[in-house]
């Protein structure tokens, strides 16, 4: 395979009026990987996905899916790409097996057994009407219809939104099984950090229309560091700590979280003169929250008199 990337975005930018929703996005998804796309609401994830899919033209820059320009995807190209939208729209008056027939008609390839298997995992009766189904089951039908077309690349826009724990489990299992061969690629936008930690091998974190992180899970985790310091007052009040995300009081100590720490960070921590300094373990969730909350630092309440 010539192109090692299933998705490639080069300086992808989109303005709505004078507001840049996606800014100079450089980002790749290697073939065979499962990438979690994280970000707060409004960070530009859905706009990015719509541009990747060729549903929305970028103001600047370009993107490729499976080596094809997003703006020139042919029906043949599209048959190799699966995409689910937020909310999983289905016609409420259809029965599940009608949904399958409907989807089968519009796809070149169809694996009926895969559809059955996925639907069963979500506990869905194929004779049921869509309007009777729970939100999780509707997600199941929508994902089953997307997977049965056997796409090489799967783009899921917040598929887990509002799902119950059983459906979430079914969704995770379905994704892992779908990628079993190691040849299929998934881009998964989500707010559920535990699920992303489970299924993804890479993460991309979007903040204010930019990709701040594009790394493997472990590399990402190692980019955030935290210390517990014994100090009488907030260290961020009078000292400059490079890469500071936040500092908060915990008992008689202060917990300081830093993104992309370097030698200077360590030096500045030492300069604080704390009675004791302890390095803390950082969980995946800590790391994500660190980046996401940093996005709010510049705008408002964190700088200066941090609480």
């Amino acid at each position, binding site marked *: 395979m010539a192109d090692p990337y299933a998705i490639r975005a080069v300086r992808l930018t989109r303005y709505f009026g004078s507001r840049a929703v996606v800014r100079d996005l450089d980002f790749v998804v290697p073939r065979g990987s499962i990438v979690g796309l994280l970000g707060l609401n409004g960070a530009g994830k859905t706009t990015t996905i719509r541009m990747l899919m060729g549903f929305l033209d970028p103001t600047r820059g370009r993107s490729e899916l499976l080596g094809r320009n997003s703006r020139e995807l042919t029906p043949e190209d599209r048959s190799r790409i699966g995409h689910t939208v937020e909310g999983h729209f289905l016609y409420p008056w259809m029965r599940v097996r009608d949904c399958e027939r409907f989807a089968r008609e519009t796809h070149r390839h169809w694996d009926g057994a895969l559809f059955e298997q996925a639907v069963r995992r979500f506990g869905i009766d194929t004779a049921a009407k869509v309007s009777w189904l729970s939100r999780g089951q509707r997600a199941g039908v929508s994902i089953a219809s997307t997977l049965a077309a056997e796409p090489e690349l799967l783009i899921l826009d917040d598929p887990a939104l509002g799902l119950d724990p059983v459906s979430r489990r079914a969704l*995770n299992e379905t994704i*892992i099984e779908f990628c079993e061969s*190691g040849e299929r690629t998934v881009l998964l936008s989500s707010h559920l950090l535990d699920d992303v930690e*489970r*299924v993804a091998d890479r993460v991309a974190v979007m903040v204010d229309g930019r990709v701040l992180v594009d790394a493997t899970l*472990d590399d990402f985790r190692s980019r955030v560091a935290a210390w517990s310091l014994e100090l009488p007052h907030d260290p961020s009040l009078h000292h400059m700590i490079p890469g500071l995300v936040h500092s908060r009081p915990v008992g008689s100590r202060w917990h300081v979280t830093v993104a992309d720490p370097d030698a200077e960070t360590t030096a500045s921590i030492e300069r604080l003169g704390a009675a004791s300094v302890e390095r803390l*373990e950082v969980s*995946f*969730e800590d790391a994500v929250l660190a980046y996401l909350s940093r996005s709010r630092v510049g705008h408002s309440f964190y700088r200066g008199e941090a609480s």
Partner: protein
Amino acid sequence: MQIRVIPGSNAAIYRQIADQIRRAVVSGQLAVGDPLPSVRQLAKELVVNPNTVAKAYAELVRDGVLETQAGRGAFIAKRRDVFTKTERLRRLDAALDTVISEALTLGFDRDETLERLRLKLDRLDVAKP
């Protein structure tokens, strides 16, 4: 043996898997030559990314806990010392430091702590003299 993973904890998922296998070997739950499920199989079972399982296995192979045989999968390896004496001592000290500080915090004295440690060791066949 049953492996469980908990996302959202301080230990990365690959570390949780590796640690549980290590523990199972030490406690005798897994014996030399016992096969482990394949990477894909375990990934499916635990509902985690296969690369995460592969990373745990790779670490265990590197540390001499597992060995892989081409086409046959991974097995518990015969114990051999992959670390130098100094490194082994360093690791043991690090682990003991945690135990000691916890024991003292909980108000156990030296003899009580030692007795407890002996009891635990006695329960494991492997560590008997």
